[in-house]
């Protein structure tokens, strides 16, 4: 066999191998895209599940507080973050509801301090009465409550009572 034919044969063989590798590369890349997407989706779904569990855990604690005998249960606050709805409750009785502006995280927070214009919660969170000069969103960690509602709610709270934000 002539060297030229051998070389041409080698070129042909290498071209076939190269084409095969090209196809394998494309397949691997497509698979990688799918794997990354699946992984992202799993991470996202796990985060959603954790959030759902956290919300349900807070609601579970809140419902347990609501279910307590109202004779023994102290008053508590509940805030539905998505609706901006703050309620003062005792046992399963809702005394007062107020639409508020809030920038606070989900969670269960103990009331730490009560002042005429401030209800301070654990973790640096705070409820304050809204004033006419308030514009825009409240500062981080703040719940801005309409003045009349703040004044009606405040005298019923004591340090150590709980606030449920979910």
């Amino acid at each position, binding site marked *: 066999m002539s*060297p*030229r034919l051998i*070389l*041409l044969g*080698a*070129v042909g063989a*290498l*071209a076939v*191998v*190269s084409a095969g*590798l*090209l196809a*394998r*590369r494309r397949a*691997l*890349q497509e*698979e*990688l895209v799918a*794997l*990354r997407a*699946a*992984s992202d989706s*799993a*991470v996202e*779904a*796990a*985060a959603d*599940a*954790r959030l*759902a*569990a956290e919300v*349900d*855990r807070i*609601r*579970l604690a809140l*419902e*347990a507080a*609501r*279910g307590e005998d*109202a*004779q023994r249960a102290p*008053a508590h606050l509940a805030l539905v973050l998505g609706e901006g709805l703050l309620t*003062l409750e*005792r046992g*399963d*009785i*809702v*005394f*007062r509801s107020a639409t508020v502006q809030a920038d606070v995280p989900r969670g269960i927070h103990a009331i730490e301090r009560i002042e005429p214009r401030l209800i301070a919660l654990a973790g640096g969170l705070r409820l304050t009465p809204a004033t006419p000069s308030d514009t825009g969103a409240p500062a981080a960690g703040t719940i801005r409550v309409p003045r*009349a509602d703040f*004044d*009606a709610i405040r*005298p*019923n709270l004591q340090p150590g009572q709980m606030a449920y934000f979910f």
Partner: protein
Amino acid sequence: MPSELTRLLLPGGIAIALAATVGWQWSDASGLAGERAAWRERLAADSATLRSARQVAQGVTDSLAALLDGRAARDSASDRPFIVISIADNRLWYRRGEEVLFETRVATGSGKFLEKTGGGGEQWKFETPRGRLVVQRKDIEPAWVPPDWHYVEAAQKRKLELLRLQKGMEVPAAAGAVVTISGSNVVTRYPDGREVPFEVKDGQEIRVGNKLIMPPFGTNQRRYTGVLGANRLYLGDGYGIHGTDAPWTIGQSVSHGCIRVRNEDIETLFRIVDLGTPVYVY
């Protein structure tokens, strides 16, 4: 020979270039395969995390559902009406769950202070107590037995000296008469032995000279009729929901701690509220 070499150069060069390309492609494919293996591992770990997070979430959701089911069953079993009173709004609601059965305006405690007699800095505070109370008694035609603060307040308003009348005490009055206690009445006893019981009402307390007389508990002069309306729901510790002879005060924070409603409202409440009904004041 040179022409043979020339004929081999082109396929030889192509073969070398292809060989280099295949080598790079092989290495690239190996790298991608390694990356795929890593992503497969990562996906497996993420899937395991997801399964675990979902299991936890499901567990909490199940617990919540069980709690809510239990509550629903309990609520339907004890769907008992209750009263809610807002001090801030001076408003009363008679509710069963979320359903409002009756609603009206009220007057609640003023929040004012009054210095107690005898010094010591002690004070009465006229506020409606917050928290949970219970309808302990339903009174018809209730009489008001004024607490001490009523006389202290009345004496201060009229700039009179307060005198706590006790059994056996005789307070000299005009024309040789004395004010004293006879049986269950505070009376004026005249020199001829005649005794005339005092008739009192809110704002017309017994006055002798510059003294305002505080009759002892148990005497008829320590009972005012007609000032609390036709009925009272007694809540204990001297507090109650009752009518009023001052209907214009309803809707204000002016009482000494009791919850005042209009007379027609206390008649309605008396009819529809049972003994033992919880009253939540907030």
